[in-house]
């Protein structure tokens, strides 16, 4: 994100309000920076959710094993306790993960279109875009989801071809005996 913003605004130290620059352009720059900040905050929130949910999941497994040990030594009265507590913690972890992703998704929907994920773009980029605004987008990143930028009719045609490829492997075995027996050439 920083690289993209720097490319757009110039390197650090570049005067942000050169003489004669319209207030509309300045407002656009500020909106862009604010969008970037919001996106990065959303990324951090998602990471926090993921950390929380992974902790809950691993704690669920740990506590299950621990209570199982107590159960085997006869210190635990209820037979189902380890399983119940373990399942509860893992369910809570899964719920936290889903909730975090949904929150992230909702935040993205409220944002204007943002540039692609920088590390991926940096890996695959070979040159700056012709519009001078930055790298050629690699992963189409749209607030409505990645598929919103897809040409539907083209995707359907290529999807049919991909399905044909997949069917070649799935039912290809049925064609081979016929194929070999109908051959006419020399081996």
């Amino acid at each position, binding site marked *: 994100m920083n690289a993209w913003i720097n490319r757009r605004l110039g390197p650090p130290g570049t005067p942000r309000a050169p003489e004669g620059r319209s207030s509309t352009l300045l407002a656009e720059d500020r909106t862009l920076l604010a969008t970037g900040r919001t996106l990065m905050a959303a990324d951090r929130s998602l990471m926090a959710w993921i950390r929380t949910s992974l902790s809950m999941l691993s704690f669920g497994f740990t506590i299950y094993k621990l209570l199982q040990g107590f159960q085997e030594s006869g210190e635990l009265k209820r037979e189902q306790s380890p399983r119940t507590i373990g399942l509860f913690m893992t369910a809570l972890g899964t719920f936290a993960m889903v909730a975090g992703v949904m929150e992230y998704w909702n935040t993205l929907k409220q944002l204007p279109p943002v540039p692609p994920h920088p590390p991926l773009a940096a890996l695959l980029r*070979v040159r700056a875009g012709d519009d001078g605004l930055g790298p050629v987008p690699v992963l189409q990143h749209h607030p409505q989801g990645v598929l919103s930028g897809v040409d539907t009719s083209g995707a359907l045609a290529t999807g049919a*071809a991909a399905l044909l*490829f997949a069917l070649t492997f799935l039912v290809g075995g049925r064609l081979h005996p016929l194929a070999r027996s109908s051959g006419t050439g020399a081996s």
Partner: protein
Amino acid sequence: MISFGSGIACAYVFVHLMPELHGTRQALAASSSAPLRFEGKSVYFVALLGFLMYYGLEHLRSGVRKHEAEGTGPSGRSFRLHVAGFAAYVGVMAFLLSHALEPARSSLPLYAGTIAVHFLSVDHALREEHGEAYERRGRIALAAMCLAGWAAGVVTEIPRGVLALVVAFVSGAVIMNSSIMELPEEKDGRFVPFLVGGLAYGLALIPLG
């Protein structure tokens, strides 16, 4: 049918992909912000890399297979290696469905038809080589990679220069795999269908471009 399909794949490589490699070279040169050394001849080198990589994979697999037969190596490695190599291959092929260097109305059916018959040869070769294991897991993995490659192609956009290199790599790999599938004597290849497929499709491709 298998030999006919291999002939078609070879014709596609020599009559369609090779001229496209020339266009690829121009695309690579145009996409670079700085002048390229040797004017983008590296695409031919990348095609050679594709060829060599799949030859290397085949060679490695034969070695592993030999160890398996002698009982000196763990079993199943040859199968995993073979399927993994071809999974990458079919994934990239499916990815290229959405990324043509020269988008034209005729190119998608042409590409899809050719690659489908080529995949039929691949499927046949893997089935003969690995039998039950391929029937149970391998073909499912390859079919899934076709769909995954396509989905990746739909949601991603790669720069023209990178696409040029991918097309070049795949061209080399197609040449190698068509040869592996058909040419060795023990593969039960039939010359007449191979020749007819190659010539007929090659002649049909000339006006289509």
